[in-house]
């Protein structure tokens, strides 16, 4: 039987952490808890990989509001501020009870965007399923011709006489689109208006005929992101999020959430550099004073970033994220590259060759290190945002900002 969380959550941070931890100890399946407590990573991974067991657990977690602690109670959350919610997330991670990485788009982007812009029907239809992990979401924003300049997107949506929308176009770099149930979709609905003013935002059912994601092989060798073709896709008007032609404002909500969410762990505790230190001790690289200094330096930088995340969550409270999120996103991207390179240097042969079954984790980390400096807005774009929105410098010139979309140059 599920033991419920106290309705009044403790105001004290340490007590909140204890309440969540004790809830987890009472509700996690016994073998799962035992494996966590024994530090038996393999067993934990095996249980989590069992789809039925994972689904059953995420249902319990969602029911308690713990998967979405910042959401209001009436929508399946706990109504916590960002910093208090991070205490909850921290405990979930400690017990390996958290939602998987694939759910980032659903939990961190779709949920808050729907909360801000959705109709009552949309909220009722989507939020409970999101909170319980029943639906996987993807983000259909980028296009071959619109990356950093996202507002230049050209996927076309035309409203039909029956009120439905007919969509044609191509999206790209869409993580998990091939597995997703729903997609956050931006389309062009008024080509005669300047680019920011003719965009409309939809919640797309990925099972709709004409939606065709094709996995693309990444530099890591995995194929998590896709190109997604949209051919004569019919979307009901009830799936539109926010007003017609005001999709840019809706997208800003999503993008702000994204930058805010991509800065690493919101608590001062074990991070990626700790793992590198452990590895350095194992390989003997720790004995090299130059590597030691770089490791401690990275450790210091990672902890400083964690401290920044906490500080910004405390400052934000229940408010919407601001341009300040770009500071952390940028710092996180820089750190990630530093760690990616450093990790290979801790391997005696630089992680360039390995025996079968002995592939060091450094290889993956090295190959994935450029992720954060591109995904979610490149580091150059984050610097522009910081310079313009935080420091008040002039905006970059955009000669086509006021040009009707259909008259813009291409290339």
């Amino acid at each position, binding site marked *: 039987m599920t033991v419920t969380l106290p309705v009044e959550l403790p105001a004290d941070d340490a007590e909140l952490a204890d309440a969540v931890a004790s809830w987890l100890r009472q509700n996690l399946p016994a073998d799962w808890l035992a494996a966590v407590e024994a530090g*038996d990573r393999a067993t934990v991974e095996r249980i989590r990989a069992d789809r039925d067991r994972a689904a059953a657990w995420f249902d319990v977690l969602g029911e308690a509001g713990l998967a979405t602690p910042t959401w209001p109670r009436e929508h399946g959350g706990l109504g916590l501020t960002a910093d208090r919610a991070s205490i909850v997330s921290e405990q979930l991670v400690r017990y390996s009870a958290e939602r998987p*990485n694939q759910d980032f788009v659903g939990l961190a982007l779709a949920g808050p965007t729907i909360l801000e812009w959705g109709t009552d029907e949309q909220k009722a239809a989507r939020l409970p399923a999101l909170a319980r992990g029943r639906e996987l979401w993807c983000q259909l924003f980028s296009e071959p011709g619109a990356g950093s300049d996202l507002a230049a997107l050209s996927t076309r949506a035309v409203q039909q006489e029956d009120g439905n929308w007919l969509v044609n176009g191509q999206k790209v770099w869409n993580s998990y689109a091939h597995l997703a149930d729903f997609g956050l979709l931006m389309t062009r609905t008024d080509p005669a208006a300047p680019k920011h003013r003719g965009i409309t935002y939809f919640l797309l059912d990925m099972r709709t005929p004409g939606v065709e994601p094709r996995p693309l092989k990444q530099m890591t060798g995995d194929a998590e992101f896709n190109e997604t073709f949209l051919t004569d896709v019919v979307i009901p008007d009830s799936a539109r999020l926010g007003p017609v032609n005001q999709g840019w404002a809706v997208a800003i909500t999503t993008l702000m959430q994204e930058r805010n969410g991509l800065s690493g762990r919101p608590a001062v505790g074990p991070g990626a550099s700790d*793992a590198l230190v452990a590895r350095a001790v194992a390989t003997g690289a720790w004995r090299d004073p130059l590597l030691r200094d770089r490791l401690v330096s990275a450790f210091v930088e990672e902890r400083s970033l964690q401290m920044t995340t906490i500080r910004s969550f405390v400052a934000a409270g229940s408010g919407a994220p601001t341009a300040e999120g770009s500071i952390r996103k*940028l710092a996180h991207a820089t750190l990630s590259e530093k760690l990616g390179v450093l990790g290979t240097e801790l391997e005696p042969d630089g992680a360039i060759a390995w025996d079968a079954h002995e592939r060091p984790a450094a290889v993956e980390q090295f190959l994935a290190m450029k992720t954060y400096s591109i995904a979610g807005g490149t580091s150059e774009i984050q610097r522009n945002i910081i310079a313009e929105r935080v420091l008040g*410098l002039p905006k970059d010139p955009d000669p086509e900002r006021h040009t009707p979309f259909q008259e813009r140059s291409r290339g």
Partner: protein
Amino acid sequence: MSRVDFLFMCRWGPLSDVRLTPPSHSLTLCPVYAEQRDPEFGWTGEHRQLRETVRGLLAERAPVSRSRELAESGARHDAALYSALAEQVGLQGLALPERFGGYGGTLLDLAIVAEEMGRVLYGGPFFPTVALAAPALMASADEEACAEYLPRIADGSVTATLAVVEGSGVWSPDDVLTVADAGGRLTGAKFPVLDGVDADLLVVAARGPEGISLYVVEGGAEGLQRSALEILDGTRRMGRVTFDATPARRIGAPGHGWAAVTQAREVASVLMAAEQVGAMAACVELTAEYARTRRQFGRLIGSFQGVKHRLADMAVRLEMSRSAAYWAAWQDPGTEEFAFGAGTARSFCSEACLQTGQDTIQLHGGIGFTWEHDAHLYLRRARADMTVLGTPAQVRAELETTVLAAAAELEPTVATHSIEVPA
């Protein structure tokens, strides 16, 4: 032996001597400051008010132009302002216990003050007295000495400093060669010592019969010689202090001097990091303002990405530094967290501050290279700060034990490592 093991051996030798050991949670609680109870980063109305008061006062009586004026004339400080800080606002005694004439505030309160002082490069005896000597006296746990000296520090009538390093720049007990004989007479030399020439009291780390202890030497003591050094950062004078069988008063338990030095240095590290945050904030504001007003090629220079992006990086360094400095200030002195926070803040903020000084000059162009412009004052301060409490590299070497302990804790409690997936 597998190929991988073999490679490990070739590159870094056999694996016997370094092991991950879990941390020992033995805490030595230092009675230095009142416990900080507010939640981390939860600013209160009092914090804001304190900041405003100090900022207003310094803007009026000690703007950076005044720091420059004092530095250029070689003056030690503005003595009238020093008294006013003590008498009108009580800053010297802000974080000292009430029983020693202080106001019982927290280290966090003092960090706010330090940040505001860093903004305007307020120098002179305040830092050596309040951030170094007073914490050393407190850490000595010598009630009698504290009762004698601290109330006079709090009321601004006495200035003091802490003399530890002896030319090597390294804060290590092995580098303390100044000796104390059985009668408590000191012989040796300390340099550079902040405010060493003029401080009324010198708190000195010296090697006595029982190991390193702290000693207080009065300014007029026999056999004490003090000479001024030429200095990079004119806002904080430094001197060479020599002792020749100089009478001194031992404070605290004999042989426990290094522990007190370490605690004082941690407190000073946090306060210096807060000062650096203030200095960096001033540099970022100054530079952003310049970029918003200076024109070249028919446009504001702040519209060039080369300028925008460098400024954005300056803002990142500033915010990370602010977090590191205040996270440390929010911990309770004497705890492992405090020691770790102090080291982290010192390593991160020192390097960030130096880079910020360089970038400030770069983005000002020729004017930034002039004597008249304030940029070089910030750069000079940043470089001096890097050495005064031990270099960032030394601090990182000291953090190694903590870092190893953290890595050792990684496996058992956190079973999977969570990373976000980018969209």
